[in-house]
Protein backbone atom coordinates (compact mmCIF):
# COMPACT_ATOMS: atom_id res chain seq x y z
CA UNK A 1 0.00 0.00 0.00
CA UNK A 2 1.63 3.23 -1.07
CA UNK A 3 1.75 6.06 1.43
CA UNK A 4 -0.44 8.20 -0.78
CA UNK A 5 -3.30 5.77 -0.56
CA UNK A 6 -2.53 5.30 3.11
CA UNK A 7 -2.99 8.97 3.80
CA UNK A 8 -6.09 9.14 1.68
CA UNK A 9 -7.51 6.34 3.72
CA UNK A 10 -6.57 8.16 6.87
CA UNK A 11 -8.53 11.22 5.79
CA UNK A 12 -12.03 10.79 7.15
CA UNK A 13 -13.68 12.09 4.01
CA UNK A 14 -12.29 11.35 0.55
CA UNK A 15 -11.60 14.69 -1.12
CA UNK A 16 -13.22 13.88 -4.43
CA UNK A 17 -16.57 13.06 -2.89
CA UNK A 18 -16.66 16.12 -0.67
CA UNK A 19 -19.35 18.65 -1.68
CA UNK A 20 -18.02 22.04 -2.69
CA UNK A 21 -20.25 23.96 -0.32
CA UNK A 22 -20.10 23.22 3.40
CA UNK A 23 -23.80 22.83 4.22
CA UNK A 24 -23.28 22.42 7.91
CA UNK A 25 -21.43 25.70 8.18
CA UNK A 26 -23.95 27.45 5.96
CA UNK A 27 -26.78 26.28 8.20
CA UNK A 28 -24.90 27.41 11.28
CA UNK A 29 -24.38 30.89 9.89
CA UNK A 30 -28.05 31.05 9.01
CA UNK A 31 -28.94 30.03 12.55
CA UNK A 32 -26.77 32.75 14.05
CA UNK A 33 -28.23 35.33 11.69
CA UNK A 34 -31.74 34.24 12.60
CA UNK A 35 -31.03 34.60 16.29
CA UNK A 36 -29.62 38.07 15.68
CA UNK A 37 -32.75 39.10 13.86
CA UNK A 38 -34.84 37.84 16.74
CA UNK A 39 -32.57 39.54 19.26
CA UNK A 40 -32.61 42.89 17.55
CA UNK A 41 -36.18 43.13 16.30
CA UNK A 42 -38.31 40.74 18.20
CA UNK A 43 -36.94 40.85 21.73
CA UNK A 44 -37.81 43.76 23.98
CA UNK A 45 -35.00 46.07 25.00
CA UNK A 46 -34.01 45.98 28.62
CA UNK A 47 -35.27 48.88 30.64
CA UNK A 48 -32.08 50.28 32.11
CA UNK A 49 -29.38 49.24 29.63
CA UNK A 50 -31.23 49.85 26.44
CA UNK A 51 -29.95 48.64 23.13
CA UNK A 52 -26.50 47.90 24.45
CA UNK A 53 -27.90 45.00 26.41
CA UNK A 54 -28.48 43.18 23.15
CA UNK A 55 -24.77 42.57 23.00
CA UNK A 56 -25.27 40.36 26.01
CA UNK A 57 -26.65 37.62 23.78
CA UNK A 58 -23.49 37.56 21.71
CA UNK A 59 -21.08 38.19 24.54
CA UNK A 60 -22.16 35.44 26.88
CA UNK A 61 -22.77 32.88 24.13
CA UNK A 62 -19.34 33.60 22.64
CA UNK A 63 -17.77 33.31 26.07
CA UNK A 64 -19.34 29.93 26.75
CA UNK A 65 -18.26 28.58 23.39
CA UNK A 66 -14.79 30.07 23.65
CA UNK A 67 -14.22 28.25 26.92
CA UNK A 68 -15.61 25.04 25.46
CA UNK A 69 -13.32 25.31 22.42
CA UNK A 70 -10.28 25.96 24.56
CA UNK A 71 -11.16 23.05 26.83
CA UNK A 72 -11.34 20.82 23.78
CA UNK A 73 -7.87 21.98 22.84
CA UNK A 74 -6.52 21.16 26.29
CA UNK A 75 -8.19 17.77 26.40
CA UNK A 76 -7.19 16.79 22.88
CA UNK A 77 -3.64 17.89 23.62
CA UNK A 78 -3.53 15.46 26.49
CA UNK A 79 -4.78 12.70 24.21
CA UNK A 80 -2.34 13.67 21.46
CA UNK A 81 0.61 13.58 23.84
CA UNK A 82 -0.48 10.36 25.50
CA UNK A 83 -1.35 8.38 22.38
CA UNK A 84 0.78 10.29 19.82
CA UNK A 85 -2.42 10.59 17.78
CA UNK A 86 -2.28 12.99 14.86
CA UNK A 87 -6.06 13.38 14.70
CA UNK A 88 -6.23 14.57 18.29
CA UNK A 89 -3.50 17.08 17.53
CA UNK A 90 -5.38 18.31 14.48
CA UNK A 91 -8.57 18.70 16.50
CA UNK A 92 -6.70 20.58 19.22
CA UNK A 93 -5.30 22.96 16.60
CA UNK A 94 -8.68 23.53 14.94
CA UNK A 95 -10.35 24.11 18.27
CA UNK A 96 -7.67 26.59 19.33
CA UNK A 97 -8.07 28.66 16.15
CA UNK A 98 -11.82 28.80 16.51
CA UNK A 99 -11.38 29.46 20.21
CA UNK A 100 -9.24 32.52 19.68
CA UNK A 101 -11.81 33.95 17.30
CA UNK A 102 -14.53 33.55 19.89
CA UNK A 103 -12.26 34.92 22.62
CA UNK A 104 -11.65 37.97 20.45
CA UNK A 105 -15.41 38.41 20.10
CA UNK A 106 -15.75 38.30 23.89
CA UNK A 107 -12.94 40.83 24.31
CA UNK A 108 -14.47 43.26 21.83
CA UNK A 109 -18.12 42.94 22.89
CA UNK A 110 -17.14 43.10 26.54
CA UNK A 111 -15.81 46.66 26.57
CA UNK A 112 -18.62 47.86 24.30
CA UNK A 113 -21.18 46.54 26.73
CA UNK A 114 -19.07 47.48 29.72
CA UNK A 115 -18.80 51.08 28.67
CA UNK A 116 -22.57 51.27 28.94
CA UNK A 117 -22.82 49.67 32.33
CA UNK A 118 -19.67 50.67 34.12
CA UNK A 119 -18.75 53.87 32.35
CA UNK A 120 -15.25 52.62 31.59
CA UNK A 121 -14.04 50.69 28.59
CA UNK A 122 -12.05 48.18 30.55
CA UNK A 123 -12.39 46.95 34.11
CA UNK A 124 -9.52 44.94 35.56
CA UNK A 125 -11.68 43.88 38.46
CA UNK A 126 -14.15 42.24 36.11
CA UNK A 127 -12.76 38.80 36.65
CA UNK A 128 -14.18 36.98 33.69
CA UNK A 129 -13.07 39.60 31.22
CA UNK A 130 -9.56 39.71 32.63
CA UNK A 131 -9.32 35.94 32.67
CA UNK A 132 -10.49 35.91 29.06
CA UNK A 133 -7.75 38.35 28.17
CA UNK A 134 -5.03 36.16 29.62
CA UNK A 135 -6.56 33.10 28.04
CA UNK A 136 -6.37 34.93 24.73
CA UNK A 137 -2.63 35.43 25.26
CA UNK A 138 -2.08 31.77 26.04
CA UNK A 139 -4.00 30.61 22.96
CA UNK A 140 -2.14 33.17 20.82
CA UNK A 141 1.15 31.79 22.14
CA UNK A 142 -0.08 28.28 21.27
CA UNK A 143 -0.81 29.30 17.68
CA UNK A 144 2.46 31.20 17.25
CA UNK A 145 4.36 28.21 18.62
CA UNK A 146 2.68 25.94 16.12
CA UNK A 147 3.59 28.30 13.33
CA UNK A 148 7.24 28.34 14.35
CA UNK A 149 7.87 24.60 14.12
CA UNK A 150 8.20 22.75 10.86
CA UNK A 151 8.54 19.18 12.04
CA UNK A 152 5.09 17.62 12.52
CA UNK A 153 5.90 15.40 15.47
CA UNK A 154 7.73 18.14 17.35
CA UNK A 155 4.94 20.61 16.67
CA UNK A 156 2.37 18.24 18.08
CA UNK A 157 4.43 17.51 21.19
CA UNK A 158 5.40 21.10 21.96
CA UNK A 159 1.96 22.58 21.47
CA UNK A 160 0.45 19.79 23.57
CA UNK A 161 2.86 20.58 26.40
CA UNK A 162 1.97 24.27 26.16
CA UNK A 163 -1.76 23.53 26.10
CA UNK A 164 -1.57 21.30 29.17
CA UNK A 165 0.55 23.78 31.10
CA UNK A 166 -1.85 26.51 29.99
CA UNK A 167 -4.73 24.51 31.43
CA UNK A 168 -2.84 24.33 34.74
CA UNK A 169 -2.24 28.05 34.58
CA UNK A 170 -5.87 29.12 34.26
CA UNK A 171 -6.93 28.34 37.84
CA UNK A 172 -3.94 30.33 39.09
CA UNK A 173 -4.83 33.31 36.97
CA UNK A 174 -8.43 33.05 38.07
CA UNK A 175 -7.40 32.98 41.71
CA UNK A 176 -4.89 35.78 41.30
CA UNK A 177 -7.35 38.05 39.50
CA UNK A 178 -9.97 37.30 42.13
CA UNK A 179 -7.63 38.31 44.91
CA UNK A 180 -6.61 41.38 42.96
CA UNK A 181 -10.22 42.37 42.36
CA UNK A 182 -11.33 41.68 45.90
CA UNK A 183 -8.62 43.98 47.13
CA UNK A 184 -9.51 46.88 44.88
CA UNK A 185 -13.27 46.70 44.83
CA UNK A 186 -15.81 44.89 46.85
CA UNK A 187 -18.31 43.27 44.49
CA UNK A 188 -19.05 46.14 42.17
CA UNK A 189 -21.64 47.55 39.80
CA UNK A 190 -24.95 49.21 39.78
CA UNK A 191 -26.26 46.73 37.30
CA UNK A 192 -25.26 43.10 37.68
CA UNK A 193 -24.45 41.83 34.20
CA UNK A 194 -25.77 38.32 34.55
CA UNK A 195 -29.17 38.42 36.14
CA UNK A 196 -30.50 35.01 37.09
CA UNK A 197 -34.05 35.91 36.34
CA UNK A 198 -34.67 37.20 32.85
CA UNK A 199 -38.14 37.82 31.51
CA UNK A 200 -39.21 34.84 29.44
CA UNK A 201 -38.75 36.37 25.99
CA UNK A 202 -35.23 37.47 26.74
CA UNK A 203 -34.47 34.14 28.28
CA UNK A 204 -35.67 32.36 25.16
CA UNK A 205 -33.54 34.57 22.96
CA UNK A 206 -30.63 33.96 25.24
CA UNK A 207 -30.99 30.20 25.10
CA UNK A 208 -31.47 30.29 21.34
CA UNK A 209 -28.38 32.46 21.04
CA UNK A 210 -26.29 30.01 23.02
CA UNK A 211 -27.56 27.13 20.90
CA UNK A 212 -26.95 28.94 17.62
CA UNK A 213 -23.47 30.01 18.64
CA UNK A 214 -22.58 26.55 19.85
CA UNK A 215 -23.78 25.11 16.56
CA UNK A 216 -21.71 27.73 14.76
CA UNK A 217 -18.67 26.94 16.89
CA UNK A 218 -18.97 23.22 16.22
CA UNK A 219 -19.45 23.82 12.48
CA UNK A 220 -16.38 26.05 12.40
CA UNK A 221 -14.25 23.48 14.22
CA UNK A 222 -15.48 20.81 11.85
CA UNK A 223 -14.71 22.92 8.79
CA UNK A 224 -11.28 23.81 10.12
CA UNK A 225 -10.55 20.18 10.95
CA UNK A 226 -11.42 19.12 7.44
CA UNK A 227 -9.21 21.85 6.06
CA UNK A 228 -6.47 20.49 8.33
CA UNK A 229 -6.83 17.03 6.81
CA UNK A 230 -6.51 18.42 3.29
CA UNK A 231 -3.58 20.58 4.24
CA UNK A 232 -1.71 17.66 5.83
CA UNK A 233 -2.46 15.50 2.81
CA UNK A 234 -1.10 18.16 0.48
CA UNK A 235 2.01 18.56 2.62
CA UNK A 236 2.74 14.85 2.61
CA UNK A 237 2.26 14.65 -1.15
CA UNK A 238 4.59 17.60 -1.47
CA UNK A 239 7.18 15.88 0.69
CA UNK A 240 6.99 12.75 -1.37
CA UNK A 241 7.30 14.77 -4.55
CA UNK A 242 10.45 16.37 -3.19
CA UNK A 243 11.90 13.08 -2.05
CA UNK A 244 11.31 11.40 -5.42
Amino acid at each position, binding site marked *: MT*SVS*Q*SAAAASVAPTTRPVFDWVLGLAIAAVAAVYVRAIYFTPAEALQGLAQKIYYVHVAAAIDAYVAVSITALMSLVALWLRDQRADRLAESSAEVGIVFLSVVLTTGPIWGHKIWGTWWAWWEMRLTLTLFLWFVVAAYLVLRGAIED*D*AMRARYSAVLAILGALLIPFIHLSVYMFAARLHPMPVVLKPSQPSLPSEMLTTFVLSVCAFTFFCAALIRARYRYGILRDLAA*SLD*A*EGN*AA
Partner: protein
Amino acid sequence: MAQTSPAVEVSGVSRTFGRRRAVDGVDFSLDAGDCLALFGPNGAGKTTLLRLIAGLLKPTAGAVHVGGRSLRSDATARAQVGLISHQSMLYRALTPRENVEFAARLYGVPDVHGAATRALERMRIADRADAPVRALSRGLQQRVSIARAIVHEPRVVLLDEPYTGLDAAGGAALTDMLHLLRSSGAALVLVTHNVDEGLAVASRAAVMLAGRVVRTDDCATLDARAYQADYRALVLGGSVPADLSVPA
Protein backbone atom coordinates in the same frame (compact mmCIF):
# COMPACT_ATOMS: atom_id res chain seq x y z
CA MET B 1 33.17 -13.58 35.46
CA ALA B 2 32.20 -15.10 32.10
CA GLN B 3 30.47 -12.71 29.74
CA THR B 4 27.41 -14.51 28.57
CA SER B 5 25.58 -11.68 26.87
CA PRO B 6 26.91 -9.87 23.82
CA ALA B 7 28.31 -6.38 24.32
CA VAL B 8 25.63 -4.89 22.13
CA GLU B 9 22.60 -6.54 20.61
CA VAL B 10 20.38 -4.81 18.08
CA SER B 11 17.17 -6.77 17.44
CA GLY B 12 14.78 -5.86 14.66
CA VAL B 13 15.30 -2.15 15.19
CA SER B 14 13.31 0.24 13.04
CA ARG B 15 12.80 3.95 13.21
CA THR B 16 10.25 5.95 11.29
CA PHE B 17 10.10 9.73 10.98
CA GLY B 18 6.59 10.62 9.87
CA ARG B 19 6.25 8.48 6.79
CA ARG B 20 9.93 7.96 6.15
CA ARG B 21 11.48 4.76 7.41
CA ALA B 22 15.06 5.76 8.21
CA VAL B 23 16.07 2.44 9.74
CA ASP B 24 14.28 -0.75 8.71
CA GLY B 25 14.62 -3.96 10.67
CA VAL B 26 18.32 -3.98 11.54
CA ASP B 27 19.71 -6.98 13.42
CA PHE B 28 23.20 -7.62 14.63
CA SER B 29 25.14 -8.36 17.76
CA LEU B 30 28.71 -7.69 18.75
CA ASP B 31 30.83 -9.35 21.40
CA ALA B 32 33.57 -7.74 23.41
CA GLY B 33 36.52 -6.80 21.20
CA ASP B 34 34.49 -6.81 17.97
CA CYS B 35 34.52 -3.85 15.67
CA LEU B 36 31.78 -3.36 13.09
CA ALA B 37 32.53 -0.97 10.25
CA LEU B 38 29.30 0.41 8.85
CA PHE B 39 29.50 1.72 5.30
CA GLY B 40 26.83 3.30 3.16
CA PRO B 41 25.92 6.39 1.15
CA ASN B 42 24.49 9.58 2.66
CA GLY B 43 20.94 9.13 3.85
CA ALA B 44 21.28 5.37 4.29
CA GLY B 45 20.36 5.61 7.95
CA LYS B 46 23.80 4.99 9.48
CA THR B 47 23.74 8.03 11.75
CA THR B 48 20.16 7.29 12.76
CA LEU B 49 21.11 3.73 13.64
CA LEU B 50 24.00 4.97 15.71
CA ARG B 51 21.76 7.40 17.55
CA LEU B 52 19.34 4.56 18.23
CA ILE B 53 22.11 2.45 19.74
CA ALA B 54 23.29 5.44 21.78
CA GLY B 55 19.83 5.91 23.25
CA LEU B 56 19.28 9.36 21.73
CA LEU B 57 16.34 8.05 19.73
CA LYS B 58 13.65 5.58 20.63
CA PRO B 59 13.12 2.76 18.10
CA THR B 60 9.63 2.53 16.65
CA ALA B 61 10.16 -1.23 16.61
CA GLY B 62 12.71 -3.61 18.09
CA ALA B 63 15.12 -3.10 20.95
CA VAL B 64 18.74 -2.41 21.76
CA HIS B 65 20.50 -4.26 24.56
CA VAL B 66 23.89 -3.37 25.97
CA GLY B 67 25.60 -5.95 28.13
CA GLY B 68 22.35 -7.85 28.31
CA ARG B 69 20.43 -4.86 29.65
CA SER B 70 17.73 -2.95 27.83
CA LEU B 71 18.99 0.45 26.79
CA ARG B 72 15.59 2.05 27.07
CA SER B 73 14.72 1.05 30.58
CA ASP B 74 18.09 0.67 32.29
CA ALA B 75 20.30 3.67 33.00
CA THR B 76 23.28 1.42 33.75
CA ALA B 77 23.08 0.18 30.16
CA ARG B 78 23.47 3.78 28.97
CA ALA B 79 26.49 4.09 31.25
CA GLN B 80 28.26 1.48 29.13
CA VAL B 81 27.99 3.45 25.91
CA GLY B 82 30.28 6.13 24.53
CA LEU B 83 29.35 8.25 21.52
CA ILE B 84 31.58 10.19 19.17
CA SER B 85 29.71 12.10 16.48
CA HIS B 86 30.15 14.87 13.91
CA GLN B 87 29.73 17.57 16.48
CA SER B 88 32.18 17.70 19.30
CA MET B 89 29.56 17.88 22.09
CA LEU B 90 32.03 20.02 23.99
CA TYR B 91 31.58 23.32 25.78
CA ARG B 92 33.87 25.78 24.10
CA ALA B 93 34.27 28.08 27.06
CA LEU B 94 35.62 25.27 29.24
CA THR B 95 39.02 23.61 29.00
CA PRO B 96 39.50 20.07 27.68
CA ARG B 97 40.18 18.88 31.19
CA GLU B 98 36.98 20.46 32.50
CA ASN B 99 34.96 18.96 29.67
CA VAL B 100 36.36 15.49 30.23
CA GLU B 101 36.02 15.70 34.00
CA PHE B 102 32.41 16.81 33.65
CA ALA B 103 31.74 13.75 31.49
CA ALA B 104 33.49 11.54 34.04
CA ARG B 105 31.28 12.89 36.81
CA LEU B 106 28.13 12.28 34.77
CA TYR B 107 29.07 8.62 34.58
CA GLY B 108 30.03 8.35 38.24
CA VAL B 109 33.66 7.51 37.51
CA PRO B 110 35.40 7.13 40.90
CA ASP B 111 38.72 8.91 40.28
CA VAL B 112 37.60 11.81 38.13
CA HIS B 113 40.91 13.63 37.82
CA GLY B 114 42.94 10.48 37.16
CA ALA B 115 40.54 9.10 34.58
CA ALA B 116 40.42 12.44 32.77
CA THR B 117 44.22 12.68 32.69
CA ARG B 118 44.49 9.15 31.32
CA ALA B 119 41.92 9.81 28.61
CA LEU B 120 43.60 13.06 27.57
CA GLU B 121 47.02 11.41 27.49
CA ARG B 122 45.75 8.56 25.36
CA MET B 123 44.50 11.00 22.78
CA ARG B 124 47.82 12.94 23.04
CA ILE B 125 46.14 16.17 23.98
CA ALA B 126 47.23 16.36 27.63
CA ASP B 127 49.60 19.24 26.98
CA ARG B 128 46.75 21.45 25.74
CA ALA B 129 44.36 20.37 28.44
CA ASP B 130 44.13 23.66 30.26
CA ALA B 131 43.31 26.16 27.54
CA PRO B 132 39.67 26.72 26.55
CA VAL B 133 38.42 24.39 23.82
CA ARG B 134 37.61 27.44 21.79
CA ALA B 135 41.33 28.01 21.27
CA LEU B 136 41.94 24.59 19.74
CA SER B 137 41.79 23.61 16.08
CA ARG B 138 39.01 21.39 14.80
CA GLY B 139 41.28 18.38 14.77
CA LEU B 140 42.42 18.89 18.35
CA GLN B 141 38.82 19.48 19.43
CA GLN B 142 37.96 16.15 17.86
CA ARG B 143 40.63 14.49 19.99
CA VAL B 144 39.18 16.08 23.12
CA SER B 145 35.76 14.90 22.04
CA ILE B 146 37.06 11.35 21.76
CA ALA B 147 38.74 11.60 25.16
CA ARG B 148 35.40 12.76 26.59
CA ALA B 149 33.63 9.79 25.06
CA ILE B 150 35.95 7.15 26.47
CA VAL B 151 36.79 8.56 29.90
CA HIS B 152 34.30 6.21 31.55
CA GLU B 153 35.76 3.15 29.78
CA PRO B 154 32.60 2.19 27.95
CA ARG B 155 31.91 -1.34 26.77
CA VAL B 156 30.41 -0.04 23.55
CA VAL B 157 31.89 2.84 21.59
CA LEU B 158 29.93 4.35 18.73
CA LEU B 159 31.82 6.46 16.23
CA ASP B 160 30.21 8.57 13.52
CA GLU B 161 32.74 9.58 10.87
CA PRO B 162 35.43 10.10 13.53
CA TYR B 163 38.28 10.58 11.05
CA THR B 164 36.70 13.71 9.57
CA GLY B 165 38.90 16.71 10.23
CA LEU B 166 41.75 14.73 11.75
CA ASP B 167 45.25 15.18 10.40
CA ALA B 168 47.67 12.26 9.99
CA ALA B 169 48.82 12.47 13.60
CA GLY B 170 45.30 12.69 14.90
CA GLY B 171 44.16 9.85 12.68
CA ALA B 172 47.03 7.69 13.90
CA ALA B 173 46.19 8.49 17.52
CA LEU B 174 42.59 7.55 16.83
CA THR B 175 43.48 4.25 15.17
CA ASP B 176 45.77 3.38 18.08
CA MET B 177 42.98 4.31 20.47
CA LEU B 178 40.54 2.05 18.66
CA HIS B 179 42.92 -0.90 18.74
CA LEU B 180 43.48 -0.28 22.43
CA LEU B 181 39.76 -0.15 23.09
CA ARG B 182 39.21 -3.39 21.20
CA SER B 183 41.96 -5.17 23.06
CA SER B 184 40.59 -3.98 26.40
CA GLY B 185 37.28 -5.58 25.55
CA ALA B 186 35.13 -2.81 24.13
CA ALA B 187 32.87 -3.37 21.12
CA LEU B 188 32.98 -0.69 18.46
CA VAL B 189 30.59 0.44 15.78
CA LEU B 190 32.37 2.66 13.28
CA VAL B 191 30.44 4.59 10.68
CA THR B 192 32.62 5.85 7.90
CA HIS B 193 32.70 6.70 4.21
CA ASN B 194 36.32 5.69 3.96
CA VAL B 195 36.43 1.96 3.30
CA ASP B 196 40.20 1.72 3.81
CA GLU B 197 40.11 3.33 7.23
CA GLY B 198 37.16 1.22 8.23
CA LEU B 199 38.66 -2.07 7.13
CA ALA B 200 41.94 -1.21 8.90
CA VAL B 201 40.28 -1.39 12.31
CA ALA B 202 37.23 -3.55 11.85
CA SER B 203 36.59 -7.23 12.44
CA ARG B 204 33.28 -7.09 10.56
CA ALA B 205 31.98 -4.89 7.76
CA ALA B 206 28.39 -4.10 6.89
CA VAL B 207 26.76 -1.96 4.22
CA MET B 208 23.57 0.00 4.79
CA LEU B 209 21.27 1.09 2.00
CA ALA B 210 17.94 2.86 2.46
CA GLY B 211 17.66 1.87 6.11
CA ARG B 212 18.56 -1.79 5.74
CA VAL B 213 21.76 -3.71 6.23
CA VAL B 214 22.18 -5.28 2.80
CA ARG B 215 25.48 -7.05 3.28
CA THR B 216 27.67 -8.25 6.15
CA ASP B 217 31.19 -9.65 5.88
CA ASP B 218 33.86 -10.99 8.19
CA CYS B 219 36.97 -8.87 7.70
CA ALA B 220 39.34 -11.76 8.24
CA THR B 221 38.15 -13.44 5.03
CA LEU B 222 37.88 -10.22 3.03
CA ASP B 223 39.88 -9.04 0.06
CA ALA B 224 40.07 -5.26 0.46
CA ARG B 225 40.23 -4.42 -3.26
CA ALA B 226 37.37 -6.65 -4.20
CA TYR B 227 35.32 -5.32 -1.34
CA GLN B 228 35.98 -1.76 -2.44
CA ALA B 229 34.76 -2.57 -5.92
CA ASP B 230 31.67 -4.36 -4.68
CA TYR B 231 30.88 -1.53 -2.35
CA ARG B 232 31.14 1.01 -5.14
CA ALA B 233 28.84 -1.07 -7.28
CA LEU B 234 26.36 -1.42 -4.48
CA VAL B 235 26.24 2.24 -3.70
CA LEU B 236 26.09 3.40 -7.28
CA GLY B 237 23.79 0.65 -8.45
CA GLY B 238 21.50 0.78 -5.45
CA SER B 239 20.98 -2.98 -5.33
CA VAL B 240 22.83 -6.11 -4.24
CA PRO B 241 24.79 -7.49 -7.24
CA ALA B 242 24.39 -11.18 -7.95
CA ASP B 243 27.88 -11.51 -9.44
CA LEU B 244 30.49 -10.15 -7.05
CA SER B 245 33.48 -10.18 -9.41
CA VAL B 246 33.48 -6.62 -10.64
CA PRO B 247 36.70 -5.22 -12.13
CA ALA B 248 38.24 -2.50 -9.97
